[in-house]
């Protein structure tokens, strides 16, 4: 009798624990979904509005839930309009060309100096390391004005190189590479040295293959920063030839009267490439951002 009673109480307890758990899971999902709506609605709103052909419908829908419903005259008219009104392909090419050459050249140069600092003992090494750590603090915004003065004097305004070359070597990227390289076992280099490998061969055949994670991290962080660059290209591009997407869409947006369908189509086309790249390399993005933090 007593034992049965105890059992019943225990059963009741586990049952109530279980319902408590279910309630908390449901509550968790509720919060997760509300937050997801908060983080998604502007982008969904942008994509949906961009495929509504009728401008007055976009304005009419903007104040209610219909803003998120693709209905009415759906199509790609706004997208065609954008291509007709401006050299959109040129802007897209400019952005891709500028960002990819900055990132690629940066991967080579930043990893090379980091390799020398992390793996070779030589005079001046300690000084260069502290110099680079000190340089991380200088924000680009603090030097844009004198840099503008300099590039203006050598006639670099309105060009690709003015948007690429000053940003290839980056102290923070060097630091990330350095931290990774210093963690690799030194015996690797020593073994290769005995086999008669030169420092460049060691870098090329041993360090690079082992360092894919840090290359991915630097590439992704640099891609994120460079793709969104705005202040510098706003200063150094005048005509459309060398203008990247960010400046192009801002100038299109600041023209009156605003045609919102076209603006949203333009905005969608700026967003899609980075969003697709993010979705493909998702895991790497998350890892890169995470590793930019802990050691900082």
């Amino acid at each position: 009798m007593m034992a049965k009673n105890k059992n019943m109480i225990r059963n009741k307890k586990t049952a109530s624990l279980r319902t408590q758990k279910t309630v908390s899971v449901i509550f968790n999902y509720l919060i997760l979904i509300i937050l997801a709506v908060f983080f998604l609605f502007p982008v969904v709103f942008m994509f949906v509005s961009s495929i509504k052909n009728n401008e007055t419908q976009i304005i009419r829908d903007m104040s209610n839930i219909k803003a998120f419903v693709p209905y009415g005259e759906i199509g790609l008219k706004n997208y065609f309009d954008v291509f007709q009104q401006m050299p959109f392909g040129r802007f897209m090419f400019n952005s891709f060309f500028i960002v990819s050459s900055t990132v690629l050249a940066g991967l080579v140069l930043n990893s090379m100096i980091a390799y020398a600092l992390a793996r070779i003992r030589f005079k001046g090494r300690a000084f260069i390391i502290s110099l680079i750590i000190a340089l991380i603090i200088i924000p680009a915004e603090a030097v844009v004005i004198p840099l503008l003065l300099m590039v203006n004097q050598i006639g670099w305004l309105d060009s690709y190189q003015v948007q690429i070359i000053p940003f290839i070597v980056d102290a923070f990227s060097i630091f990330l590479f350095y931290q990774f390289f210093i963690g690799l076992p030194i015996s690797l280099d020593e073994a290769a040295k005995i086999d008669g490998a030169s420092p460049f061969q060691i870098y090329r055949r041993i360090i690079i293959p082992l360092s894919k994670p840090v290359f991915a991290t630097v590439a992704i962080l640099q891609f994120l920063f460079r793709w969104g660059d705005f202040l510098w290209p706003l200063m150094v591009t005048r005509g459309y030839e060398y203008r990247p997407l960010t400046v192009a869409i801002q100038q299109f947006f600041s023209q009156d009267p605003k045609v919102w369908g076209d603006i949203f189509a333009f905005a969608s086309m700026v967003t899609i490439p980075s969003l697709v790249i993010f979705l493909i390399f998702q895991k790497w993005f998350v890892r890169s951002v995470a590793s930019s933090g802990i050691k900082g």
Partner: protein
Amino acid sequence: MTDKELRLQKKSFKKRNPLQKKETLAAWSFCALPLLFLFIFLITPFIVAFIISFTDQRLISNPNLPTQFIALRNFLRLFNSSSFHQALWNNIYFVLVVVPLQTFLALLLAVLVNQKLRFINLFRTIYFSPVVTTMVVVAIVWYFLYNPGEGLINQFLNFISFGKLGPYNWLNDTSLVMPAIMLLSIWQGVGFQMIIYLAGLQNIPDELYEAGRVDGANIWQQFWHITVPQLRNTTIFVIISTTILAFKLFTQVWVMTRGGPQGASKTIIVLLYEEGFSMLRVGYASAIGVLFFLIVLCVSLLQRVYLKEERAVL
């Protein structure tokens, strides 16, 4: 030591020396080009900024009016300029609101998405997605959402307050324009800090929580007494880096309001851009840049002090 041994030693010395020389040469050849780039595009403009901040240098120099050394006049003018005060205050206001709010929200999101639930990766992806959306695009879309009369945000506030709130003229109201910009900045940036916190959370050993549970700590006690102290370094990093980013505030302001209405959303970098680029007063703008650098430097040094203090405590 026999002669033979000595000779061998000498030999190995000779052998090692050229090798070391070769290595040093290789090291410098790896360093040369990157150092040259850093020197030309970062160190030189940095030094030039200090130098021309003491002159009346203009972007396009007038041959009849040579650039002159004017000592501290740029800085004195800045300290007495009401638009600089306004810009500095707006940045500080932004820091005071956004940094605590965004840090707290990032931690909350990280704790939420650190649970072992189905589809949790999907939620992580969604919360992070604004980070990969370019700020210019974000600013344009939110500009539309903040539309004075019929905008979605006004309608939403109106709806949840049963018609008591709004409509507001968000971007044209001197007291609402900064909060409006703060909201979209948090929306865009918080996913980044969430991921940093998530990495921090995953580094906390499970044993700590188990010990806590054995001692009868509930979820909240575990959060305050285990999670928060364990994340101290991460929190310092997040706070400092968000503060520095907040002082760099430019893109969203320039796209949405250009610093208006009446300078209510003007920031240090907006002022720097206007003075240096629109008005061509390079000397004056460089003085702004120097002050901006000093602010960032102080914030970064603060991080070092705090991290050191913690080491001393441990």
